[in-house]
């Protein structure tokens, strides 16, 4: 079940949880997004994530449901953090489990790509010279 939360997540615990949901699971693919220390030539000190409470969670649940019908996966899960996150901190975790690895790889990549396009979450970058909202859609 999709989650948006301020607190950090435990990648090992989340991975074991999704793997343990079915005896048919043969693969769990994960994508972890973390804060890097540069953006467009500027040093980044931290990021601040804001979301639309309610709508962001609903859009994430829709994405998970679409992934479950689109790919031959057993389950999937997306966890996105909000608030201020320092360099190297965890931002987002996407997990997909399947019987065989190709479906889990495909679902994981599709989920993070669609999240960026469809889930109402915004990122502010803090540099030494100030801060600004990231406006460009990747």
């Amino acid at each position, binding site marked *: 079940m999709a989650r948006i939360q301020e607190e950090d997540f435990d990648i090992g615990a989340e991975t074991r949880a999704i793997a343990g949901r079915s005896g048919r699971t043969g693969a769990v693919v994960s994508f972890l997004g973390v804060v890097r220390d540069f953006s467009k030539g500027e040093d980044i000190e931290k990021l601040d994530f804001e979301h639309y409470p309610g709508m962001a969670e*609903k859009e994430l649940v829709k994405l998970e449901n679409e992934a479950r019908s689109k790919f031959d996966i057993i389950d999937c899960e997306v966890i996105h953090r909000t608030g201020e996150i320092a360099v190297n901190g965890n931002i987002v975790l996407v997990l997909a489990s399947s019987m065989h690895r190709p479906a889990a790889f495909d679902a994981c990549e599709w989920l993070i790509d669609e999240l960026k396009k469809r889930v109402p979450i915004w990122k502010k970058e803090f540099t030494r010279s100030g801060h600004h909202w990231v406006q460009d859609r990747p």
Partner: protein
Amino acid sequence: MARLILFASVRERAGFSQMDLPLDGPATVRDVLQMAADKASIDSSLLMGDSLLYAVNQESVFLDGVVEEADEVAVLPPLSGGV
């Protein structure tokens, strides 16, 4: 009454995060945003720019989307979740 909610860059530029607006019958998102801009004495282009998205009751709509009594209208700047 409809409630307008702004996020991220739009909230900061407009100078407010939410506003309750009285409705005289059904209106469009465009009507609500024009009313809000007038009330806040800001340029309506801050709330109706090309790159902005809109939602009514947390479902995506266009500027001509219908707004009714007690609806929640949101202006969403370009999304930038993930990494």
